[in-house]
């Protein structure tokens, strides 16, 4: 016999109310846990996806939309920018490096992104099988794309016009321009995992043939220079060398440029310069990401408060349960004192009971929270917006357990003090 077993025996005798309190606490803790896991993973993900991108240049519109569409690939682009404007940005002395993005098509909900191998390197991507593209109409699949579509090296597929996501995109199929898969990337836990990567000229080519007024670039010249385009991809630094002379009459377009600054100083002047140039808009991922988290934060705070309300309610339940039970238990307590239990022991006995409830509730809550996060994560994965899993453990969860125990202790203090004050002679004198 010890206090633990003694308290457990009392809990078992009042199993129903104990269960109710444990469940209430568990639901509260689970709610908070899910929010913790979600906000942590979303933030992780956003930070990772936006890492080392100082600025995004795209078409005028909402800067948030520009970031969402071209960094996180979860919104439609603001539009396209003329290639010669993109060149101007690339050649700006304050710009250290750029990654071009040409969007427009998708395959089974996964975006086909025209870019350069530098984009793959930026997220630490490397082929798990096959190799990166060398030529137009060759495609490299992100890890999740390969998993979900079942495509592998050597397979062919045709993109669908439109990038709104989901399997049932109503766009036109570019059947006469199928891509050939040359490689599949390893998991990077970044946006790369759910993208299909091709060369920029491939995107131009598809749209050059297919549309009179497609995404952008069209007509004869886009499709007419496969050799040249191949060379562009080969040195990995898109169009800077060969096509600079095209000038404003070149109708080819890019969707966005991911820009790295030459020096921190660029952050002061460059965005302003770019924004003043007709069609261009500059947006800072760090700023927009922070804004996004802040906006999400309001909703999360509300839910979190709800979770704490449940936890507090459970605490009240524990308090009321112990307080009421004490009336019936005062003879037991007096008897325990008669058997030699000190006042401290009885205090600890009541406290142990509350702490056990709190720990059970907290652990059950954490378990529920992780299961819920995993289940919700699975359903999110269906829509491919975010990959969230319940299999992440955070140190804050230990704090949650601590806080739950603290709530239990607070709830038990008054009953425990009453137990401490049990007057043996008076209680037993009354007891008949």
């Amino acid at each position: 016999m010890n206090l633990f077993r003694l308290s457990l025996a009392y809990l078992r005798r009042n199993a129903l109310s104990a269960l109710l309190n444990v469940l209430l606490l568990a639901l509260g803790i689970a709610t908070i846990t899910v929010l913790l896991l979600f906000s942590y993973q979303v933030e992780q993900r956003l930070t990772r996806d936006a890492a080392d991108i100082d600025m995004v240049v795209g078409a005028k519109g909402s800067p948030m939309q520009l970031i969402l569409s071209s960094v996180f690939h979860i919104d439609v682009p603001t539009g396209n920018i003329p290639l010669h404007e993109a060149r101007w940005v690339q050649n700006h002395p304050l710009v250290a490096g750029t990654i071009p993005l040409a969007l427009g098509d998708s395959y089974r909900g996964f975006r086909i992104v025209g870019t350069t191998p530098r984009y793959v390197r930026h997220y630490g991507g490397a082929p798990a099988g096959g190799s990166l593209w060398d030529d137009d109409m060759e495609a490299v699949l992100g890890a999740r794309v390969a998993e979900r579509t079942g495509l592998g090296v050597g397979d062919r597929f045709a993109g669908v016009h439109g990038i709104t996501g989901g399997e049932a995109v109503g766009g036109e199929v570019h059947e006469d321009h199928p891509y050939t898969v040359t490689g599949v990337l390893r998991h990077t836990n970044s946006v790369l995992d759910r993208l299909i990567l091709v060369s920029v000229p491939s995107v131009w080519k598809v749209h050059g043939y297919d549309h009179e007024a497609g995404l952008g670039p069209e007509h004869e010249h886009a499709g007419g220079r496969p050799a040249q385009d191949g060379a562009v991809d080969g040195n990995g630094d898109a169009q800077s060398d060969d096509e600079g002379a095209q000038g404003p009459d070149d109708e080819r377009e890019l969707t966005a440029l991911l820009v790295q600054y030459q020096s921190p100083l660029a952050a002061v002047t460059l965005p302003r310069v770019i924004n003043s140039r007709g069609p261009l808009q500059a947006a800072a991922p760090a700023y927009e990401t922070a804004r996004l988290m802040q906006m999400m934060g309001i909703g999360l705070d509300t839910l979190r408060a709800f979770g704490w309300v449940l936890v507090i309610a459970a605490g009240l339940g524990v308090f009321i349960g112990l307080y009421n039970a004490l009336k019936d238990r005062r003879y037991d307590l007096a008897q325990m004192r008669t058997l030699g239990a000190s006042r401290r022991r009885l205090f600890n006995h009541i406290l142990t009971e509350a702490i056990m409830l709190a720990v059970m509730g907290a652990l059950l809550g954490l378990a529920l929270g992780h299961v819920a996060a995993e289940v919700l994560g699975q359903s999110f994965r269906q829509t491919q917006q975010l990959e969230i899993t319940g299999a992440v453990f955070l140190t804050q969860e230990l704090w949650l357990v601590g806080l739950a125990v603290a709530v239990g202790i607070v709830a038990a203090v008054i009953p425990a003090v009453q137990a401490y004050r049990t007057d043996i002679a008076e209680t037993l004198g009354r007891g008949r």
Partner: protein
Amino acid sequence: MLGIRDVTHRYRDGTTITLPNWQAQDGEHWALLGPSGSGKTTLLHILGGLLRPQRGQVFIGERRLDQLGERALDQFRGQHIGVVFQTLHLVDALTVENNLRLARYFAGLSQDRNQILEVLDRLGVAEVARHHPHRLSQGQAQRVALARAIINEPAVILADEPTSALDDKTCQQVLELLTAQALACHATLVIATHDARVRGVLEHALELEPAE
């Protein structure tokens, strides 16, 4: 030796009671008699270390209970004093066996299952060791309460009105059990009661005067 000297106690309502000087030798069996309000229960609580007298000395063997600190008194009570109340106060959340274990635990003594079963067996209730108290008959419960009082082999066994609600036959049995177990532990036995049937059974009696 068990006794009190110059003890007065003040109740919460302000009335005070002066108890006669009294002492019992080791192993003696005493009846503590007197009408309601004469201070029987108060004296029993003082002897059991459940109540501190306002003044006076309380001794068990060489120890002065009135001089022990709170924790020491708790420990002394657990190890050397067994108490049976009229209402038995068995802990219903625990099995019979664990009720006895609880007594060992709070006294800070080892919890040997064989010893516990042996004591239950001695009192004829070994078969209900795994039962919870609410399933016991009155007679069984009485025996279990006594088993709990003697499980730590106390020097003193105190019983407060153990027989007053019982019929003659059961009363007889309870008294026999108490005296037999007190003999077995070589314990001093004090039974506080207003039950006249007890008087003839025990060798010594202390009559308390009704309070004025």
